[in-house]
């Protein structure tokens, strides 16, 4: 049996799937699935057994009907809503508006899945998504009264598990910042020293940092990178402190480098899709340019002119860029105008995949055994 590469595309009007063989040249498109639902998060998970060996988890939400998790064990043909989806108690005072992130648990915990929610909170399932509980140590943190929602909502959008010490995890929340646990999620510490501060109007100095997306270095789990509202940052001490890494990034004098996604390849190539400024939030001049910082370099280079002969006055959202784990790796992103682009040469040249969708919220890769 061979392998296939699946791209899961969550949009504000349902979920779509591309699939291809390992060459990743001829993509077959299926969907829409979950029509009518926003799909802010999706996870393709092949760690199961029996009929659910290949399970898709989708974080579905709707402006009128709230949020829940739906799963499919047949590549999207049929779906089942999880009755015991993440939820907040009435006493908490919080509302569960969206599911922003779904990630698998540690390698030796195939039944564990984590979910990041809006309003910001972290949930875990130990039975492959059937039941969920909130890790309340995060929402009971003393700084919680001073967490302030950005305009996009107070979302917990990034969850990272240390690759060899599953007790250590990081989460990142928009307009709040980074928190780390070293006891498997029971207690959390803010880890925002050195990050720029966005004006949240709240007095608490420990929080109020607007992380847009954060990734862990594949070779060194003490090293993290983030695209923040007010710049691009790196930590070499597990998030204890942060410093800017912005050489080559200034698009507009006086503005900190602004954008949403950041991705890292298995070999350590970093990728950004910088926007013109916080105020404008579009590709400068309509030029869809991918920037990369290669391992060993200290500066960013505009390495990929994605669609040289056309303009795209668009943005790319925080969870809409991703890397597969293959060799050579594929880099993918989806735009707010619903196009998907793919590069197989470290972000230098790009193909546009067929089809166009609504606003793309999330792009995830999934490597499956061919049926």
């Amino acid at each position: 049996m061979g392998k296939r590469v699946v791209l899961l595309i969550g949009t504000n009007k349902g979920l779509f799937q591309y699939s291809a063989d390992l060459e990743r040249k001829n993509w077959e498109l299926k969907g829409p699935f979950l029509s009518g639902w926003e799909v802010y998060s999706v996870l393709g998970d092949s760690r199961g057994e029996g009929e659910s060996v290949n399970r898709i988890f989708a974080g579905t939400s709707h402006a009128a009907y709230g949020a829940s998790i739906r799963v499919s064990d047949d590549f999207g043909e049929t779906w089942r809503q999880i009755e015991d989806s993440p939820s907040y108690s009435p006493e908490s005072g919080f509302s569960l508006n969206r599911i922003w992130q779904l990630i698998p648990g540690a390698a030796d915990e195939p039944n564990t899945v984590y979910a990041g929610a809006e309003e910001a909170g972290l949930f875990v399932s130990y039975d492959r998504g059937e039941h969920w509980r909130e890790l309340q140590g995060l929402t009971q943190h003393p700084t919680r009264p001073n967490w302030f929602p950005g305009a996009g909502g107070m979302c917990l959008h990034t969850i990272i598990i240390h690759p060899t010490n599953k007790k250590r995890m990081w989460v990142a929340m928009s307009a709040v910042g980074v928190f780390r646990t070293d006891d498997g999620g029971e207690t959390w510490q803010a880890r925002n020293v050195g990050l720029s501060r966005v004006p949240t109007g709240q007095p608490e100095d420990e929080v109020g940092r607007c992380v847009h997306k954060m990734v862990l270095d594949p070779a060194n789990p003490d090293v993290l990178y983030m695209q923040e509202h007010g710049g691009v940052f790196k930590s070499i001490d597990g998030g204890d402190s942060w410093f800017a890494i912005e050489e080559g990034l200034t698009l507009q004098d006086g503005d900190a480098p602004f954008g949403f996604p950041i991705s890292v390849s298995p070999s350590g190539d970093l990728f950004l899709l910088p926007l013109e400024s916080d105020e404008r939030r579009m590709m400068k001049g309509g030029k869809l340019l991918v920037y990369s910082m290669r391992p060993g370099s200290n500066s960013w280079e505009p390495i990929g002119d994605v669609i040289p002969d056309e303009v795209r006055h668009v943005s790319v959202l925080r969870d809409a860029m991703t890397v597969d784990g293959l060799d050579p790796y594929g880099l993918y992103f989806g735009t707010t105008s619903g196009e998907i682009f793919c590069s197989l040469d470290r972000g230098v040249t790009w193909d546009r995949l067929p089809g166009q969708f609504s606003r793309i919220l999330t792009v995830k890769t999934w490597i499956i055994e061919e049926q």
Partner: protein
Amino acid sequence: MGVRITVTVPMLLSDCTKGRSAFELEADTLQGALQLLVAEYPLLKVHLYNEHGEVRKHVLIYYNNDNIAWLDKLDIPLAAGDKLRVLQAVSGG
């Protein structure tokens, strides 16, 4: 025996109601019908009600021609042919 009424829900929520957007329920009162609706179809609950048990802001539940939010009480005896409709309030996007 209760009174048999017709319930309709938006197609989007029909995966919570065994794939049907129209079905029947048997209850004695409107309150009983509302309780039975989410007891029989528990997946509906999260979509109709918020964390405090209130009908979501952009969800409307109509008993015949009345939004249940307009009613002084829900302890209303049902009559044959009554209708309970779940509607999405006008929203854009």
